[in-house]
């Protein structure tokens, strides 16, 4: 089923949540593995998100403006003797999309509460 423009799937909400949580802890930019690890720890899971699923979601979030990315200076990667790294940063668009998604997911319960409340 084709989803509406701007609509986030649960995995994308988790990615944005992870990016926001990291930023609150002072990590403004995060690479793919760090985001996957944050998501795993947040949901208390044992396994990290699959490679294909994670990087496809990151690309879509970047394409829709929810995330921005940059490649680190290759000299840093060479100095640390590891592969070069791509860093993602949560944007204002991403924050707004996350807030909207949270609001939408909480609306049905609010609706039920309102329906059960005495008038």
């Amino acid at each position: 089923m084709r989803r509406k423009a701007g609509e986030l799937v649960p995995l994308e909400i988790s990615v944005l949540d992870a990016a926001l949580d990291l930023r609150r802890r002072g990590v403004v930019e995060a690479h793919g593995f760090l985001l996957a690890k944050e998501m795993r720890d947040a949901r208390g899971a044992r396994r990290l998100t699959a490679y294909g699923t994670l990087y496809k979601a990151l690309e879509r979030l970047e394409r829709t403006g929810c995330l921005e990315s940059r490649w680190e200076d290759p000299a840093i990667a060479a100095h640390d003797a590891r592969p070069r790294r791509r860093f993602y940063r949560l944007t204002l668009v991403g924050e707004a999309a996350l807030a909207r998604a949270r609001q939408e997911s909480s609306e049905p319960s609010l609706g039920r509460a309102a329906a059960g409340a005495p008038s």
Partner: protein
Amino acid sequence: MSAPGGEVVRRWVDAYTRGLPSEARAARRDEIDDDLWCQLEESVVLGRSARSLRVEILLRLLLGLPADISWRLSQAGVRTAKGERSTSMSTRTVGALWIVAGAAFVSAAIVVAVLGPESSLGGLGAIVLAVGSVGALAFVGAVFGLVWQFRGRLSRLSALAGGVAALGMLLVVIDAPASWVLLALGSAVLVWDLARAQAIPRALAIVFGVSSILMLVPTGGALFGISDTADTPLQVALALPYLLSWIALGVSLLRGMPIAQAPLTSA
């Protein structure tokens, strides 16, 4: 040190990004490489066993396959822009010569098949002869151009085959026996080696080779006295795919190869 199972992941990334521009391939490969590197680092810190890490890596690979495939399909036709094909002015010139040669021989062959041998056509016959001669010169130029242009990537055998093909064409001009055999086999070997060197698509080399053999069927029959089909519409019909494959080869050289498929440039 690399993560256990990491090599399988890398091979899979290499497979599903094949055909994409080199930058897109490198970006995906580096991102996965970094992820594997971090996963290995974390497992060392946590004191996990190699087996447990391997299982998790393979699970992450397997569970992500549908996403990888759908991502790859979404990239098809989007990123292979015209500017990302690799070709040069001299390669395009050689390509144009193949097109001229093919077009000249196709038109001459059709006229001969429909109206009869050029000797019986009067003024039109002279024109057919002139067109054929231009085609022959273009073919010789195209063959030597290919051998020169890709000299660093072709084997000696295929360079020799190119010479045989050019010789065959010169013998065709003087109507020598077996000339088409030399021409077709020599050019087929040369084109096959070009595909091996990733200068043209493999499928084109296969079509070229098959059509050259198809063309030789009536020639072979006539040579061995099995049939007498020289200059008949049947022979022309069987030769047409081969002559059209010259044009296809020319078009391919004019367009160049996608950079992701042809990392090497011509010599």
